């Protein structure tokens, strides 16, 4: 199937600053695709080029078969957009904003009242934008991004500045968007957001894409290290652990053992060893690397630095 979004060799500079360079990727129909990187990595620039709000200096972009910059109005009609740090008129009411947005698209808008209800905004429909909480504003922006029943939804730093509870609620909403068959393209600097939401992710830094894959594949490829921590009083345990294939190091402090190795099978091997040797354990934990570790490994620093 033809990809929904196709980006080939895009470069965009602001004066002497290269914001993005040689960026290429594809987003498939019906997936949640994430672009993750630290602030200033070029996420928003990339997204705004795809939305037709900026013209790349070089490269080609196609969204739903359209050239986003040349066919910007045709494209806007078929996509939904949530911008980073956007505001609305201070004194516009929630229902007025939704009503205005509903009138802007060729396609008949979806049922606005139901949308407000789904987003928990029914009670706030007569509230001015300036009097909404951060989470309510974000939910309103999601409503505006969905009002035209778009084929692709763009979400830029969707949950930045929200408390964990609002964040989880919004993740739930985004999964709901995918379940309705939409394609979602999002940017974030939160690893947890990617791990919870994204089918595939592109890691971007200094305007370049470092790697693209499913989150678990990225972890498997770049961080095969696995760690098992367990506690046992068995005197022969250490010796047995060292004999497990793939185990690279065993350290001990009192009755606690830390077993390090590589590959997905390590945990299974350890469990197998415990059961075969009838070793009694009083504690058992695994430490698996996550995207944070992948990022650290690929860039040499943490995403928050």
């Amino acid at each position, binding site marked *: 199937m033809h990809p929904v979004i196709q980006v080939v060799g895009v470069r965009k500079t602001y004066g002497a600053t290269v914001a993005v360079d040689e960026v290429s990727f594809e987003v498939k129909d019906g997936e949640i695709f994430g672009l993750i990187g630290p602030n200033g990595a070029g996420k928003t620039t990339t997204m705004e080029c795809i939305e037709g709000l900026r013209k790349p200096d070089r490269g080609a972009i196609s969204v739903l078969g359209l050239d986003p910059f040349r066919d910007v109005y045709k494209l806007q009609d078929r996509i939904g*957009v949530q*911008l980073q740090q*956007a*505001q609305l008129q201070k004194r516009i009411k929630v229902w007025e904003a939704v009503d205005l947005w509903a009138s*802007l*698209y060729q396609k008949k808008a979806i049922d606005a009242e139901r949308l407000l209800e789904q987003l928990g905004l029914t009670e706030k429909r007569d509230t001015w934008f300036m009097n909404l909480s951060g989470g309510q504003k974000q939910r309103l922006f999601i409503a505006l991004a969905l009002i035209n029943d778009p084929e692709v939804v763009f979400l830029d730093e969707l949950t930045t500045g929200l408390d964990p509870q609002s964040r989880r609620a919004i993740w739930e909403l985004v999964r709901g968007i995918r379940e309705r068959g939409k394609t979602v393209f999002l940017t974030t600097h939160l690893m947890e957001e990617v791990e919870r939401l994204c089918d595939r992710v592109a890691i971007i830094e200094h305007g370049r894409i470092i790697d693209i894959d499913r989150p678990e594949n990225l972890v498997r490829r770049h961080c095969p290290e696995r760690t098992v921590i367990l506690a046992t009083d068995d005197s022969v345990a250490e010796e047995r652990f060292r004999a497990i294939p793939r185990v690279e190091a065993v350290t001990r402090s009192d009755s606690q053992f830390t077993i390090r190795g590589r590959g997905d099978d390590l945990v299974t091997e350890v469990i197998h060893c415990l059961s075969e040797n009838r070793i009694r354990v009083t504690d058992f934990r695994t430490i698996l690397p996550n995207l944070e570790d992948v990022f650290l490994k690929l860039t040499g620093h943490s995403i928050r630095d």
Partner: protein
Amino acid sequence: MMLRGLWKLTWIELKIFLREPLGAFGTIVIPVLVFLVVGRILGRGLAPSALAANTFIGVGLPVLASVLIAVSSVLSLVTIISIYREGGILKRLRATPLRPQTILSAHVIVKLLLTAATLALMLLAGKRYYPVGVHAPLFEFTIALLISTWSILSIGFLIASIVPTARFAQPIGAFIMYPMIAFSGLFTPVESLPPALQAMARVVPLTYAVSLLEGIWKGDAWSSHLGDVAALVLVFVICTAVSAKVFRWE
């Protein structure tokens, strides 16, 4: 295509403007107050015959108040546009099928509606409280004021294009607009100014607005003010063309 969303956006922007605690007061009440209070003060102690002969009370002050209405519309537009830009509201509106010209047209229509409403209020209040009767052709004068406002609103867009932040919008706008009133021939006829100032008055767009408004107020025919109208249209065309080039959406 261009019209999609225009009326709804205009209506919403109008409602939003009226919800501003000071917005409506500043643009609507102040010009009307200037008109009535200055008129009362100047008219105090003058005999009815002297009042009727006083050209400032008869023509100058109503035109000054009307120009103030237009200028405050422009300043309000400059402020709104720069706040909308700074807050990312313009950018958010652009990330829809809305055309840029639709967004800006909605603001122009709101300002013209408010200009007409303020003028109507001023004339109504004038019938009761102004020292001399208001005998101007009201419909023609309203049209003349709307043409003038529409023309100098384009200067507002130009100012809005160059002001760096919303905080500076109102002062910079005022710094550009108010001196224009001084040179516009409202207080001293352009012909009696020194040559250097005359030349200046000729390039100030407000001069043509004042000439048109004074003429129509006095009952001149439109045909004798085609030059003023042409100048105002020219100002609109030039300012719109320049701001289309330099306007920043974010």
